[in-house]
Every structure is written in structure tokens, then in C-alpha cells.
């Protein structure tokens, strides 16, 4: 595999597919898109199998000075690898999910999705600061079109909100990037990750990056675009938004904010904790009262991503690893939950929870999948959700027990709103006749759901497969953060070491103790 520019190839295949889709009819475009995403997925599997765990930190590097001002530099570490795998895994599923539900302008729709895939891979693989920005921002165009053209009734408002919110966050980051490159003299990300910016400058740079990533994640109170965008987007659009685009924010924190500005990250950890704690409690409560299924899952996304942010800012290995696993798990689980909603939406054309009920009777397989993903979202042991949330919360507990306490309530609240949703949709009597007449999932839908279910269980039972590639990179990051890590609130005060073991028997030195 030496010398094969596999990352560029992974971007070229969907790009060529997108161009082909744009000029072909509906049926052909579907098959082209599916083929292109599957080929990319196969390339992704190759990438993973060729990735050497414990090898160089940056592998599969490519570099070409194509542009003035920045270079075309790609390369991945374990963190990028996992997120790229998530993207290429979800993509064929998205295409399948849109197979029948999208009937208008299919060619352009598929082209937008394939273009989106190019940009996502590019974002995770970019090793040049400005190249990263180009990929990061360019995602706005296809997503704006996907929401606006193929979305629900209120799509115009949602697409504007999505576009302007995210654009505003990002331009401030661009200013900070210019400053950093002028200061450090390079736009190479690995070099910048080791560069020490002056602490007072770090404050401003951190805030500028935060503006962008906090909108993407999204963190309370910048999350309001998310329920709108999710609800109005077509099913596959929601899957990509929740599955991958939200991860761009988390990826931004772990790749930029933490390693490049460790001191400022420690300084602002309280801010992240506060916002995350509010997000966990508030959005979970909001999710509890939603009547719209997609909105409910959208709010639950905000709560889960808050667990990611506290894990990231715990400044220890458990927290970072947990945050990464939550991101991967949430990508799968929330994507799958949106698919579950989309599946019944395709049949009944409503997302209102009250219009369903008793689906377990007429759609047993559907109910089974829905249950699995519900449980994974709650964090049941054996599913991916448990591993991530447990590690994250264990990590944060070492830093702040208060934050851990409040964020753990998210698990309880999560169980509340998810089980409540499940009860109303799948259990109970068949109150609505049309809902009772729905057929169970088709072969195409089986093909969509089964791989995600398998991945969720795999990550839940044997997370080592996913942790191993990232371990070395997280260790490097942890070492970089060690100096700046905030003090733990546990205040473990070491006493004077005892001179003898705790269970040592006193010596029989005196005669009067001898007899009993």
C-alpha cells in the first residue's frame, strides 16, 4: 500500500460520484451514489486495516503545494481514523434511507450527499489549518441545500438559521487562524499542536475557536439551530447532521482547542462545565415534553454532546477516551434513532408521537431495533452508549465531583425521556388504525439497520477495537495537557506515610501484654 494516496482516493471516489449523479436520472443516481459510498467504505476498511497501531503518530500523509497561502496536506492519527470510519460507515446507510423517500431531484440530492462525504473526510484528514477551514466551512453549502430543497414545511427558516449560525461562528475562528499562522509561521497542524502560544493570546484564540465549535457541537445556549435543522431536514440529512457534523465540533476541541491552547482550555474549563451541566439537565427536560419524535431526539443529542464536552475538558485519559467513544457511539445511535423515526415517517408522514402506538404488535422487528437503539442511547451496559458515558463520567469525576454528579443525572433523565418515547410509540394499545396497519421493515430497511445494530453491540462489548488506535494519540494529548490540567476538587491530601503496615501486629516487646 506504500505510496497509494488512499485519503485522496477516498475523497476522489465520492467526488466523481457526485459529478456523475448531477448529470444522471433518478434511478441511475441512486445506484451510482450507493456504489460510490460503498467503494469509499471499502477504502475506509482498507485504511483501518493498514493503520499501524503504535506506529507513527501521523500516517498516510500526503502533501502538495497546490495553492498559494496554504498547502494540500492530508494525514490521519487514530482520532481522525475513527471519525472517518464513522462517516464512511454512515454514508451508504444514508443513501439507502433516501432510496424511496426522496423522489424529487434525486440526482442533485445524491450529489449533495456525496459532496458532503468528500468534505467530511477532508475535514478529518486535513493537516493544514486553512485546508481544514475550507473543508469545515464548505459543508455549509450542501447542507443548506439538503435542508432547504428536500426538507419539511418550515425548511426555509431552518436552513437560514443553520447557515448563518454556523457561518458566524466560523469566521471568528478564521481570524484566530490568521493570527496563529502569522505568529507561528506555519499552517501545519501537527506543528501547531506542539507550539506554545503566549497565555494571554491563548485566551482570545480559545474564545474564537470556541465560538465556532460551540455552535457546531452545539452547546447550550447556542444549540437552538439544531432542533430546527434536524426536524426540517430529510431523514438522511438528520443522520448526517447528528452522526457526523456534530462531531466536527468535538473534533475541533480535541484537535485544536485542547492541544493548541492548553492553558486557556484549563482557564475556561469552568465555562465548558457550566454550559454542559445546564445543557444536560435543561435539554433533557425539554426532550421530555416534546410531542415531535425528531425534536425529542435532537434535544437528546444536545444532552449527549454535553457529556462529550465535559469528558474532553476533564484533562485526563479516561475523559478524553470516553468523549471519543461517546462521539462515535452517539454518531451511530442517534443516526439509527433518526432512521427509526424516518422509517415510520415514510409510512405515515407524521412525526407526532401521539399518532403512533402499539407498533410492537404489527412491527415486531422494527420494535426490536428501536428498543436496542433506545437502550444504547440510555447507556445500557453491553451497548456502545454505556462504555462512552461511563468513561467520560469517570474522567470528570477525577476533576470535579459536582460536575460528575450533575451530568450523571443526564443518564437518569435520558432513560426517562427515551423510555417514555418508546412506551408511547411501541407499547400500549393500537390506538391509531393507520399506524396499526403499517407493515414491518422491508429488506432494504433491514440492510440499513442491521449493520448499525452490530456496530453498537461490538462497541459495547469489545470497545478495545475502537480504543486501541486512539490510545497513543490520547496519551500524547494527555501528556501535553498535563502541565495545564486544573486541580481536582477531590483534594486528596496525602498524610504522612505510616511507618508500618496497617495490619502489622505490635511486637511482643513487653511481657505484660503477653498473657490474656
Amino acid at each position, binding site marked *: 500500500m506504500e505510496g497509494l494516496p488512499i485519503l485522496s482516493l477516498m475523497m476522489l471516489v465520492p467526488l466523481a460520484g457526485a459529478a456523475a449523479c448531477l448529470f444522471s436520472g433518478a434511478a441511475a443516481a441512486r445506484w451510482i451514489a450507493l456504489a460510490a459510498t460503498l467503494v469509499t467504505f471499502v477504502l475506509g476498511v482498507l485504511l483501518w486495516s493498514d493503520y499501524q497501531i503504535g506506529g507513527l503518530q501521523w500516517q498516510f500523509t500526503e502533501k502538495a503545494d*497546490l*495553492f*498559494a*497561502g496554504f498547502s494540500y496536506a492530508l494525514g490521519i492519527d487514530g482520532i481522525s481514523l475513527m471519525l472517518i470510519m464513522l462517516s464512511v460507515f454512515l454514508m451508504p446507510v444514508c443513501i439507502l434511507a433516501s432510496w424511496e423517500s426522496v423522489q424529487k*431531484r434525486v440526482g*442533485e440530492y445524491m450529489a449533495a450527499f456525496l459532496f458532503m462525504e468528500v468534505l467530511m473526510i477532508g475535514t478529518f484528514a486535513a493537516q493544514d489549518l*486553512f485546508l481544514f*477551514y*475550507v*473543508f469545515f*466551512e*464548505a459543508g*455549509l*453549502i450542501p447542507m*443548506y*441545500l439538503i435542508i*432547504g*430543497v428536500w426538507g419539511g414545511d418550515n*425548511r*426555509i427558516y431552518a*436552513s*437560514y438559521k443553520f*447557515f*448563518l449560525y454556523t*457561518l*458566524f461562528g466560523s*469566521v*471568528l475562528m*478564521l*481570524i484566530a487562524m*490568521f*493570527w496563529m*499562522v*502569522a505568529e507561528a509561521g506555519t499552517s501545519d497542524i501537527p506543528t501547531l499542536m506542539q507550539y506554545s502560544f503566549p497565555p494571554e493570546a491563548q485566551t482570545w484564540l480559545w474564545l474564537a475557536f470556541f465560538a465556532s465549535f460551540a455552535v457546531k457541537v452545539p452547546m447550550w445556549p447556542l444549540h437552538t439551530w439544531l432542533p430546527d435543522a434536524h426536524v426540517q431536514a430529510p431523514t438522511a440529512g438528520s443522520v448526517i447532521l447528528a452522526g457526523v457534523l456534530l462531531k466536527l465540533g468535538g473534533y475541533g476541541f480535541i484537535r485544536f482547542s485542547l492541544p493548541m491552547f492548553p492553558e486557556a482550555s484549563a482557564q475556561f474549563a469552568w465555562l465548558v462545565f457550566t454550559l454542559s451541566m445546564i445543557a444536560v439537565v435543561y435539554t433533557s427536560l425539554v426532550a421530555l415534553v416534546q410531542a415531535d419524535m425528531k425534536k425529542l431526539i435532537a434535544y437528546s443529542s444536545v444532552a449527549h454532546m454535553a457529556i462529550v464536552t465535559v469528558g474532553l475538558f476533564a484533562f485526563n485519559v479516561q475523559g478524553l477516551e470516553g468523549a471519543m467513544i461517546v462521539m462515535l457511539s452517539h454518531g451511530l445511535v442517534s443516526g439509527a434513532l433518526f432512521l427509526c423515526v424516518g422509517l415510520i415517517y415514510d409510512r405515515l408522514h407524521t412525526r407526532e408521537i401521539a399518532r403512533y402506538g402499539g407498533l410492537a404488535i404489527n412491527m415486531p422487528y422494527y420494535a426490536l431495533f428501536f428498543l436496542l437503539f433506545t437502550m444504547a442511547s440510555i447507556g445500557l451496559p453491553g451497548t456502545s452508549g454505556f462504555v462512552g458515558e461511563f468513561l467520560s463520567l469517570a474522567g470528570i469525576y477525577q476533576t470535579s465531583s459536582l460536575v460528575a454528579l450533575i451530568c450523571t443525572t443526564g443518564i437518569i433523565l435520558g432513560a426517562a425521556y427515551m423510555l417514555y418515547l418508546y412506551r408511547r410509540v411501541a407499547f400500549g394499545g393500537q390506538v391509531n388504525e393507520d399506524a396499526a396497519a403499517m407493515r414491518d421493515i422491508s429488506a432494504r430497511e433491514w440492510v440499513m439497520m442491521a449493520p448499525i445494530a452490530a456496530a453498537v453491540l461490538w462497541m459495547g462489548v469489545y470497545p478495545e477495537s475502537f480504543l486501541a488506535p486512539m490510545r497513543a494519540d490520547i496519551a500524547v494529548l494527555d501528556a501535553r495537557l498535563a502541565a495545564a490540567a486544573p486541580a481536582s476538587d477531590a483534594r486528596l491530601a496525602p498524610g504522612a506515610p505510616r511507618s508500618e503496615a496497617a495490619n502489622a501486629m505490635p511486637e511482643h516487646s513487653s511481657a505484660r501484654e503477653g498473657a490474656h
Partner: protein
Amino acid sequence: MEFAASFALVMPELVLIGAGLALLLVAAWGGDKAARPIAITAAAALFAAGFLLVPGLHTGGTGPSTLAFGGLFKIDSYALFAKALIYLAAIGALMIAPAFFAGPAAGAERGMRAEYPVLILFAAVGMSIMVSANDFMSLYLGLELNSLSAYVLAAILRRDARSGEAGLKYFVLGALASGILLYGMSLLYGFTGGTAFTAVRAGLTGEMGTGALFGVIFVLSGLAFKISAVPFHMWTPDVYEGAPTPVTAFFATAPKVAAVALTARVVFEVFGAQVAAWQQIVMFMALASIIFGALVAIGQENLKRLLAYSSINNVGFILLGLAVANVDGASAMLVYLFIYVAMSLGSFVALLMLRGEDGCLFETFADIRGLSVTQPAIAWALLLFMFSLAGVPPLLGFYSKFVVFQATIEADLVVFGAIAIAASVIGAFYYIKFVKVMFFDEPAGVITGKSGAAHWALLGITALIVSPLGYLLTPSLTDLADKAAASLFLTV
């Protein structure tokens, strides 16, 4: 001998003047029937003049060998870069005109008038003189030659009330601006004792008196009129809306390049020793143009008017590069100009290609609803231009903002840059409205996109430049702009 060298330096202008005079005679005797061959010859002359620039562009002329006619003109690589851009834009304006004037949009008098290409040629000569002026006298000559041609161009549809109104407004306000500029020049002459740029510069070193300061401000105000920067922008929307669309496309590109290039030369070469005096003025104009251009554009329904405000907004970003007041800023400004010309020319061509059943041009948002269904090719091209104007990567419009902001931040004007970039988000609002109307709304009616090969070719070329493939141009573009900007600072 010295004269011969001067003539050799102004060869492109001589070609254009010769062609212009000859074509004027053809127009006088041949009448409007000869309009088409005249237009083709004029485009050929512009192309030839542009071709003459190529050797100089690559070798990058600087130093005393670039002075012509005793220092009245300076044909350095900066002037060459601007001229190349002006000629290209003028060729574009010639290419798109015949189809427009042949259609019913031209009103009662069908067919292109023979004067149109001639006037474009003379305007191009005037702009050439502007960008290579090295003396306030030659500056003014060039400016007026350009402006007078432009006034007539705006009013070229004689029986159309809006076109006449546009021409008149342009003339009255343009004359006012010229007056202000002349007054400033006379003040500078009075306080420094010369009209040559070098003489004025020498007179402006050290502490500047109030009179000279007034001179600087008046000259800058006059120039701000010409580049339509806020607060001297008010003629722009009316003129852009009223003038025939090909003329509007011309106004939005070539004269803008010339006026911006001229302004940059004046502030760097004449006021170079008094950076503090003009920098804050330019900074204010830049921010005001960006914010005002963006805010007012939001409410517009007329597409040409909207593009007029968009051009005001873009001028703000161009001035941002100027306000940085160093080589990087000037180079960024030139890169921005190039990309801006491609984007605006492309958007105007796309507008020209949209006609209703009766053949009339579309002018409002309501007309282009659902364009992506009826005319997908034009809609996708417009999508590229609009996202590009909004500065969204990976389109080339992002690169133009990229270089300008990079220069701003590297010069430590962080707050200034941050305000400007935040304001650019406001601009994005109305650019994506284009996309919303074309792609999200239901089709409004029949749109015939039957256009000539010239339109399609120009649309294709500009769309290619704006698309991500345009980034492959950036290394050579940056190289040329760097050379041009360096020659501007040689005197400093």
C-alpha cells in the same frame, strides 16, 4: 529618442486610441448596421492591447525606465496588472452587449448602437491613463475621459426613461465628484507647489498643515465617489438599476478596477508619507461600505439594485486591503479585484441570460423563483457566484476574502479585521437568498434561457474561475499581484 521610448511604453493605449478613432469614423458613416463588425474589431483591439501587456507583466517593470512623457505616466507592473484586468472586463462587456440590445429589453430602438463599442474603447483608454497616471493632470484627464464615456453609456437607450435618468444622475453626481477632486488637487498644488506625484509627496513630508490636510481629504472624497464607497455611494444603486444591464456589468467591473487602482496609487505614492492621515479615513470607508452595503441589500427586491449594493459591500473589502497600508495589503487588494471582476461579470451575465416568454429581462426575485428547475445550468452557475460572493469556501470568493483578512491580521489590525469579518456574515444573508429563491421556491413561470454562445462562453469561463478549480490559478495570480504591489512601493 526619449520620446520614442515613451511611445513604446504607451503602445497599448495607442492601439486603443487608433482603433477608437477609426471605428468612430466607421460608426459615423456606416451607422448602426456596422455595429457588429465594430464591436468585433473593438474587442480585437482590446485583446491586442492586452497582449502587448503580457511581456511587461512577466518581467515586472519597475524603476525609472517605466516613466513616460517626462514623468506624466508610469507604466510599472502595477499599472500593467490593472490594465490587463480592465481590458478583460471591457472585452466581457462587449461580448454580452449585442444579444441584449437585439432583444425587446432594449425598448423602442432595437439593435446595438454603433457608438457602444467605441465608447467602451474610449472608456478603456481613459482607465488605462488613470491607472498609469503619475501626475494629477494626467490623472484627471484619464478620469474624465472614462467618466464622460460612462455617462453616455449609461444613457445609451435614448428612449428609455430609466436609462436617461441613470445617465443624468450619473453625470450630475459624477461632475460633483470631479469638482471635489479638482478642488482637492488645487489645494494640494497650492500647499506643495507641484502636480506631479513625486512633487506633492515631497511637499507632504513632515508635519502637514490644515490646508494640505483638506487637500488630502477632498482628493480622497472625490475618489471615493468614483469607487462608490460609503458615504459617497448614493449614485450607485440608481445608476446600476437604470443603466442597460451590459453597461451595468461594465460599470461594476472595469471602472471599479481603475478607480480602486488609482486610489491605491494616490494614497501610497502621493500620501505615502502621511499614512496616519489617510489610513483612518480608508478604514472608516471600508467598514462603512461593508456594513451599509450588506444591511441595505437585505431589503432589495430588484436584482440589479441588489448587485449594486453587493458591489458597495465588495468595495469595502477591497478598501480593507488598502487600509492595511503595506505591500501585502496592496497585493491582497489586487487579488481581490481579479476575483471580484470574475464574480460580478459572471453574475451579470447570468442575469442577462434570464428572459421571460416575451423576451424581457428578469429583474426581481419573484421572477427567478424555482430557476433550478427551469434553467438548471444558469441556476447552478448563479449558486456558485452567490456563495462565492458570500465568501464560503471552497469557492474562489473565499480566497479573495482570505488574502485580504490575512493581510489585515498580519498587520496587527485584529479588531478592525474581526469587525469586518463579522459584518461579512450579514452579507451572506442576501446572497443565500438568491439560492433560496432559485432552489427552494416553486417555479414562477416560463423562463427561456435561449442565449447566444458568447453568453454561455462567458458564463462558463467565469464559473470555472470561481469554482474550486480556480484555486489552481492562485499561485500565478498571487505572483503577479505581488510583483505589481511591490512596484507600487518602490518609491517609498
